């Protein structure tokens, strides 16, 4: 069964460092998303991406964040200068179309900022 894969599963970084979280969406999907879940809190929308541009972003997704689809298979989330409060599980998701709200999530990357 096709699935969304994310790497690494766990990333530890020092405050102020840049991190890149990587995702391989399901191959025939066209819409891509990043969500995050701070420990003990709700899953929160960060950004959606279609046709090589951001479709929508939340207030969390400030200038420290960026997304990119560098090739035909990968979708990345970059945090330029990490803060302690960026520590969370980051989930990538993809869906085949915008009319189809069946979004499939990856297993997540646990980011720990120390």
């Amino acid at each position: 069964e096709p699935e969304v894969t994310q790497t690494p599963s766990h990333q530890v970084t020092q405050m102020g460092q840049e991190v890149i979280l990587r995702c391989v969406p399901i191959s025939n999907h066209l819409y891509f998303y990043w969500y995050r879940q701070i420990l003990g809190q709700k899953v929160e929308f960060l950004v959606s991406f279609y046709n090589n541009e951001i479709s929508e972003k939340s207030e969390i997704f400030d200038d420290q964040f960026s997304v990119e689809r560098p090739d035909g298979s990968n979708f990345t989330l970059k945090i330029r200068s990490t803060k302690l409060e960026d520590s969370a599980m980051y989930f990538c998701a993809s869906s085949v179309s915008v009319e189809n709200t069946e979004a499939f999530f990856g297993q997540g990357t646990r980011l720990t900022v120390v």
Partner: protein
Amino acid sequence: QKEVEQDPGPLSVPEGAIVSLNCTYSNSAFQYFMWYRQYSRKGPELLMYTYSSGNKEDGRFTAQVDKSSKYISLFIRDSQPSDSATYLCAMSLGGIYNFNKFYFGSGTKLNVKP
């Protein structure tokens, strides 16, 4: 912002019981309603997805949406220990301009005892 409310539980039931999980919401514009299952340290897994009001059944799972009451439910019949997980409700406005921006509940932790 309390768009979607969900009792965090934990909810503990004996094997074979009928489980009822619920969410309430405040935004009457939500059109799509999803239930995700999340095992510990894994990504959310889509269980059911319904559009607007009504019921939808899939095996042991039944999703109900009551838009007039802003209330959604997931029923699990003949619950199994393997159903033990956190259940997340999620909602979206739908439509081409909302690109699957989901609003999640906080999740209900379910424990099915053998």
